[in-house]
């Protein structure tokens, strides 16, 4: 084996017998390999720049837009041409606003205010469309820290909603409410039982600043899971450190 022959293998952590034999007899190749290994270690040790968290928000916002755009027209919109459908939608919206205004006027002394608004959004969380439920979660997320019924609704979503994205959004909305023991327990349960890595990641992000003994135990148990997504394993280890 000559010096050019060993060049492709100089960075291999384990050398085959032939390459090793050449290195044993060639001081120059030995020196080059040592220098390369040194540079390699230096680069790998120092260039682990973390990605800014804002990138996640931007990505999921784009994904949400794509999902919204992807929704195909259903019902009357599927047989009315888009040129007609848009003005028709505006007309329906216009009539609806007037109708709502009239009803509101007649119920002036009835229940109104933020409570009624929250109730409206809570019913949106049960909508058949995942996009509607997702929008509902985003709308109501600021109320989770102060309103118990909102927290309960979000906890129900993380436990039972069939859409991964809705469960992830609900977990993010619940993150500031982790000081509440019931919320923490629910998030820990989801972490151990939800099969979706994206949901597990969202649960981990919510729990990472609340590493109580109960949480640490759940994380230890999670590490025992066979076939655990490497990304999750890495994240759990970084929290437990």
């Amino acid at each position, binding site marked *: 084996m000559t010096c050019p022959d060993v*060049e*492709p*293998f*100089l*960075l291999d952590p384990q050398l085959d017998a032939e390459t090793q034999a050449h290195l044993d007899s060639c001081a120059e190749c030995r020196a*080059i390999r040592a*220098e*390369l290994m040194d*540079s*390699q270690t*230096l*680069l*790998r040790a*120092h*260039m*682990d*720049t*973390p*990605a*800014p*968290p*804002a*990138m*996640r928000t*931007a*990505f*999921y916002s*784009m*994904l949400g837009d*794509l*999902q919204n755009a*992807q929704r195909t027209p259903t019902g009357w919109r599927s047989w009315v041409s888009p040129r007609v459908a848009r003005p028709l939608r505006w007309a329906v919206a216009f009539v609806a606003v007037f109708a709502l205004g009239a009803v509101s006027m007649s119920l002036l002394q009835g229940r109104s205010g933020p409570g009624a608004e929250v109730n409206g959004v809570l019913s949106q969380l049960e909508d058949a469309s995942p996009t509607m439920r997702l929008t509902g979660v985003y709308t109501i997320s600021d109320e989770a820290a102060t309103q118990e019924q909102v927290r309960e609704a979000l906890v129900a979503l993380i436990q039972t909603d069939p*859409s*991964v*994205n809705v469960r*992830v959004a609900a977990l993010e909305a619940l993150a500031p409410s982790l000081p509440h023991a019931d919320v923490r327990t629910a998030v820990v349960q989801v972490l151990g039982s939800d*099969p*979706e*890595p*994206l949901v597990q*990641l969202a649960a981990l992000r919510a729990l990472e600043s609340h590493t109580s003994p109960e949480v640490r135990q759940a994380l230890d148990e999670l590490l025992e899971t066979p*076939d655990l*997504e490497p*990304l999750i394993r890495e994240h759990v280890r970084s929290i437990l450190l």
Partner: protein
Amino acid sequence: MPSLSDEDVMARIQTGDLEHAGLLFERHHTDLYRFFVHTTQSRAVSQDLTQDVFVRLFAYKASYKRGAPVRPWLHRIARNVLADYWKRPRRDSVALDDETTASGLPSPISDLERREVLDGLDAALARLDPAQRELLVHSHVSDLSYSEIAEIYDITINAARVRVCRALRAFRTIYIPHEVHDDLP
């Protein structure tokens, strides 16, 4: 239950199922971001370019060959995104030696030395031939295997090995290790 592989997620995206698309982002965005940070020397630009890779992933999902490894495909997109970026007129960007760390938080003093080393490494990378710089970042920052590099650059695995080795040797001739001066206050 084993989680979906990148290839499974991509196959679902091709059929319009975006439910698991976030997995690709979670698994690859850091590597892609690092690739851009160490090739463009700008964190702000790198955020945009990383996002651009995912925009193109959805836009060109039809061009993904079902079953092919996703990681090299993503990094090929990243190379195209970078090439397009270099073609654009230069705009103001936040240099790596700004006042904040990559996390956006002020640098703790204890990180200063580490930061000086990183600055030295980045300065050396910046002086490297662009093709070698890309290759080195792919192999030593994004940690791509020789076979993945071979696929991205459309070369043989042996050629990938030789090119990475030469890029690292070129880097070594440029890089001046940071020295700690004991006499400094």
